[in-house]
């Protein structure tokens, strides 16, 4: 790919990402936040994270599921997201170490 085209591609992606990042704020400036809309935004935001986790469980299979399960158990026991992450990636690494996949 030519040098200017490559820079154009990077600039276009950067502009798109910034527009998307700002769009949520901009749109909501014209929407009156009623208790119902507040509840919708709240449930929607949790749903985004739930959806990312659910998709990655399907894509990642048992290895990701084991990492998430042990990570969540650690979070519930310690209330520490850092401990949860360490246990999760530890399981992910150990799985590859033992099974080779």
């Amino acid at each position, binding site marked *: 790919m030519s040098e200017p085209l490559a820079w154009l591609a*990077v*600039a276009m992606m950067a502009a798109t990402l910034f527009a998307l990042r700002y769009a949520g704020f901009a749109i909501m400036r014209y929407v009156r936040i009623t208790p119902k809309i507040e509840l*919708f*935004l709240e449930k929607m935001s949790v749903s985004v994270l739930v959806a990312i986790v659910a998709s990655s469980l399907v894509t990642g299979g048992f290895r990701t599921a084991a990492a998430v399960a042990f990570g969540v158990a650690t979070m519930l026991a310690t209330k520490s997201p850092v401990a949860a992450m360490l246990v999760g990636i530890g399981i992910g690494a150990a799985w590859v170490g033992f099974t080779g996949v």
Partner: protein
Amino acid sequence: MTTASVCMTLSGVVRGARRLAPLAVFMTPLGMAYGVAAIESGMSSAHAIASSILVYSAAAQFTAVDFWGPDISLVALFLVTLAVSARHVIMGAALSPWVNQLDAKRRILGAAFLSDPNFAYAHTALKQNENDVGVLVGAGAITWSTWVLGTAVGAIAGTQLGDPRTYGIDVLMPVYFAALVVPGLLSDTRWVFAVVAAFVAVASQPFVPTGWNIILAALAGGVVGVWTVDE
């Protein structure tokens, strides 16, 4: 949800950066993986590093790597970037009760680093006792800096680094997100919305372009969430 007296201060930025520093450490190997993938696809190391500085979206950048080549279509790249990253609109809308109380300059700063990890952390914090949107900026800036650092190392050191799966780095994000949402869901008697969101995300994944299943799931979860409380 309390949204009174919102501010954005430097101490909030520092607090956010500190809180997400442990996660940010792990963004370095993830960035390395991107740097390696980018140069393997024919991207120059300057473009790889610039894309991490300016675009700062793992999902959009990894997808762009698949497209990179002499025949790249900017229109196709634009549409894919839009599809993969459209959930940022939803995250922005969810943060708007706090961010929109700030002036335009601070809103732009709030948008600059908006991504999955700092959204997950800052939205949770703001719902509790936090009233400083600086935490969103600080948390975003720290993960951005390690993502850029990792990309630079990967793009320059290349393929000698090995597979991030060996170190379990690829499961980091789902583990972190699950750790943040599951405790809240366990104490929520109206958790059906989350089950619906998970189901929609998984069921629609094979049929819609990459990333759109997350948007469908978020909208479904939002609607069911309002509906189950209204009953």
